[in-house]
């Protein structure tokens, strides 16, 4: 056996070597003698090329592939020569003049090459769809502008020789076919700047992929391209319509969340947004849908708090309809869990019923059965369900444990048609004390700022009404500052606000100011008021006291009765944690001099920052500044009737720093040997 092995190895080498260095013969359509001639010519030409350009682009075995013999009859563009200069002969748009110019230019450098150039027929394709471009010489990724020459785009068919002469280089130097193939058709573009006029050089080459696993022969034509869609014809129209005719290509419709489906009824618990079910249907309340008119089939989602309001056009004489009856909204049985096997039916627990008279007075009655009835004599329909409020108690397992409701029944006459019905539903977890937050933890845009006072040695004291904790002046139609008492607007997070009123200053207003002063703030500085009244003869003191009165009144109008001293950093800051609250910084421009200064504007600036992770940032208030600007009122001002514009504003400023990357700390390995590890020996 041993003497045979060298022969076998030689034999293997003999077999493998040609297939590595040559393309398989199935690619060539020329006979051997012709191929050899062409190959010789090509090698000599390539030597010229590499000498002329100073660069050898490919190893010698690769350059052997540059010969025209590889081009197939299917693509006449490549047969024109391996090295060409200027406009693409494969391009159907190139004119004969272009070709002549090209020949001229390249004739100077490489005369033998252009012998093979010829005007080529453009194959016309009569197809309904544009055929995909598979010829690499007509592919151009940098051709971005239509009918324009893109700068430094050497494959742009619109560019002319004069354009190429001013190019600094080629942005795309090589266009290659699929990189998995062993032999890749490719076009090399370059600018020959060594000549007097820089010219574009185009080379059609075959790049040999050295990979053993490259695809030598690909017989599956649609392999490396997208599938051409079918053209609809008379024969295949029905099948195409069946496949693509629907609203979506996915035939399996997701019915898991749809209301009343079997999937919804087999769930073991309610999830957020799932329709609350009744034994035969689902819990529904009237709601406006598109128009103001009530639609009766609006499902109520679990944990989705809603305020529904809609109007109903009814005939007053026929008001005993179900939509107006209390029983429709009261006698509802609800499944505590969607799964009907283990369902416990829950009836609605009516806590209160209020009767509303025709003129709007409300009277609570004992809950019971009320049926709307029309009184012929008075033309009034009584006991019409006007509003309802539901409170759903749920457990943390997603089961509904209780529903309480309160209703308002009203009397209506024909002048009140269309009547308006409003329903409200809220959800509260069982055993949890519910308190509304302005965010958890960060503030949510549109919710009121949490604010309060701080007394020494105590936590923050807040008003129970969260819409009354931080307020500013509210504009009214009268624009009279002295009439604005108690008319306040809640400061909502993220909402910049501007409001104002007008203070009419005149000597005649002094008395009114005094009265207003007394009524508005009876607790502050009664001495000044007393002094102003005690010395009516002294002009200075009178003016001064008037000024003081005006200043105090305006300040009261701007700041309200109780201006808080602290604002919560987060929407859920607890009053016990004083460190979670920021004090409101007070900046005043007043100069307590003899002249009269009156505050004219209050600017509340809330600086907030995004806090926490980049994915889910939380709004955190870092600083609140209250700036009160004063204006000097000249002495002669009091005599004339002057208007003073008072403004209040709230602005929210995002002062977030750029996000910093944060990484978890590397875990440290705390590996210690026990102290008696070497016990028997040491």
């Amino acid at each position, binding site marked *: 056996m041993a003497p*045979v092995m060298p022969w076998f190895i030689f034999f*293997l080498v003999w077999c493998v070597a040609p*297939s590595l260095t040559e393309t398989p013969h199935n690619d060539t359509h020329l006979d051997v003698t012709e191929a050899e001639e062409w190959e010789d010519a090509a090698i000599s030409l390539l030597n010229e090329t590499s000498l002329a350009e100073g660069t050898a682009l490919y190893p010698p075995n690769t350059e052997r592939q540059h010969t025209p013999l590889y081009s197939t009859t299917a693509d006449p563009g490549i047969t024109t020569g391996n090295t060409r200069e200027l406009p693409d002969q494969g391009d159907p748009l190139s004119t004969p003049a272009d070709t002549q110019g090209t020949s001229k230019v390249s004739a100077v450098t490489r005369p033998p090459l252009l012998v093979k150039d010829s005007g080529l027929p453009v194959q016309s394709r009569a197809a309904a769809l544009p055929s995909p471009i598979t010829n690499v010489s007509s592919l151009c990724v940098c051709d971005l502008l239509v009918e324009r020459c893109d700068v430094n785009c050497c494959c742009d068919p619109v560019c002319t020789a004069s354009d190429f002469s001013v190019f600094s280089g080629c942005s795309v130097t090589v266009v290659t076919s699929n990189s998995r193939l062993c032999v890749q058709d490719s076009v090399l573009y370059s600018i020959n700047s060594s000549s007097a006029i820089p010219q574009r050089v185009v080379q059609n080459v075959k790049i040999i992929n050295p990979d*053993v696993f490259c*695809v*030598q*022969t690909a017989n*599956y034509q649609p392999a490396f391209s997208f599938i051409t869609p079918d053209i609809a014809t008379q024969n295949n129209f029905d099948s195409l319509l069946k496949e693509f005719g629907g609203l979506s290509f996915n035939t399996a419709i997701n019915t898991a969340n749809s209301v009343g489906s079997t999937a919804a009824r087999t769930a073991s618990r309610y999830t957020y947004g799932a329709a609350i079910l009744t034994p035969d249907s689902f819990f529904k309340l009237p709601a406006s849908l598109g128009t103001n008119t009530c639609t009766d089939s609006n499902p109520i989602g679990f944990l989705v708090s809603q305020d529904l309001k809609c109007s109903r056009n009814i005939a007053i004489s026929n008001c005993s309809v179900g939509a107006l009856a209390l029983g429709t909204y009261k006698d509802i049985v609800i499944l505590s869990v969607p799964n009907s096997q283990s369902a416990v039916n829950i009836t609605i627990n009516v806590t209160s019923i209020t009767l509303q008279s025709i003129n709007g007075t409300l009277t609570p009655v004992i809950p019971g059965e009320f049926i709307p009835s029309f009184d012929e004599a008075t033309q009034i329909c009584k006991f019409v369900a006007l509003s309802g409020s539901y409170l759903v108690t749920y457990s943390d397992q997603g089961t509904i444990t209780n529903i309480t409701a309160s209703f308002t029944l009203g009397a209506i006459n024909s002048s009140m048609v269309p009547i308006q019905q409003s329903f409200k539903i809220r959800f509260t977890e069982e055993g949890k004390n519910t308190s509304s937050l302005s965010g958890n933890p960060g503030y949510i845009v549109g919710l009121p700022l949490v604010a309060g006072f701080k007394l020494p040695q105590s936590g923050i004291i807040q008003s129970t009404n969260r819409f009354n904790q931080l307020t500013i002046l509210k504009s009214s139609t009268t624009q009279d500052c002295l009439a604005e008492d108690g008319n306040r607007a809640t400061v909502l997070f993220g909402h910049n606000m501007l409001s104002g009123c007008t203070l009419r200053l005149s000597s005649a207003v002094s008395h009114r100011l005094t009265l207003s002063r007394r009524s508005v703030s009876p607790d502050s500085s009664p001495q000044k008021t007393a002094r102003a009244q005690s010395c009516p003869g002294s002009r200075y003191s009178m003016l001064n006291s008037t000024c003081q009165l005006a200043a105090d009144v305006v300040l009261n109008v701007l700041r309200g009765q109780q201006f808080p001293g602290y604002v919560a950093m987060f929407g859920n800051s607890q009053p016990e944690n004083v460190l979670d609250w920021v004090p409101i910084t007070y900046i005043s421009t007043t100069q307590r001099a003899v002249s009269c200064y009156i505050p004219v504007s209050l600017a509340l600036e809330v600086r907030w920052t995004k806090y926490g992770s980049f994915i889910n940032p939380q709004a955190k208030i870092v600083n609140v500044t209250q700036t009160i600007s004063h204006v000097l009122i000249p002495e002669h001002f009091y005599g004339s009737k002057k208007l003073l514009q008072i403004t209040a504003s709230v602005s929210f400023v995002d002062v977030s720093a750029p996000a910093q990357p944060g990484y978890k700390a590397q875990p440290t390995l705390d590996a210690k040997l026990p102290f008696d590890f070497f016990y028997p020996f040491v």
Partner: protein
Amino acid sequence: MSNYIYISINEHTHTHTHTHIHFIWSSFLLSVPGRRRRGVLSSTPLEILFFLNGWYCASYFLIEALIFLYKGLILPYPTSNLVLEVVLLALYLGIEVTRLFLGCRGNLCERRLPLVVSVGLTIPAGLLALYYLLLQTYALRLETVLSCIILVFYGLEVILSIAALITFCREPSY
């Protein structure tokens, strides 16, 4: 069969070399036309080729199986094509094993029929090799090389098998 005959003759002559009668007998045997002493007719190069081809065949199918795994993962394949090619590969393996077994046996036993069947089986095997060389969905360069080698094996084996067949036909068999 012929080996046994050959050995028995040899022993016969050896044990009775010094016996005159037997010497005459053996010379008489050899002198009779059609009953002259004959050598080994089996072809040693053919046997070597079959041996190498057996090892090559095993590695070829192992590599092809891995290549199909690779191609199936990497390249877009219509399922029907992939199934067809894998089934053809299994068929090819069966043909190749049968062919080698029969060829080897026919050559060693100097029997014509197994060798003829082996040569006949070379035709479908060669066609399958050509399929994997040229016509399959994607032919990798590695596959091209492997198929070329196996085709060279086939060519040499066919030539040597035919030569061996001619030898067998020329020599009479007992």
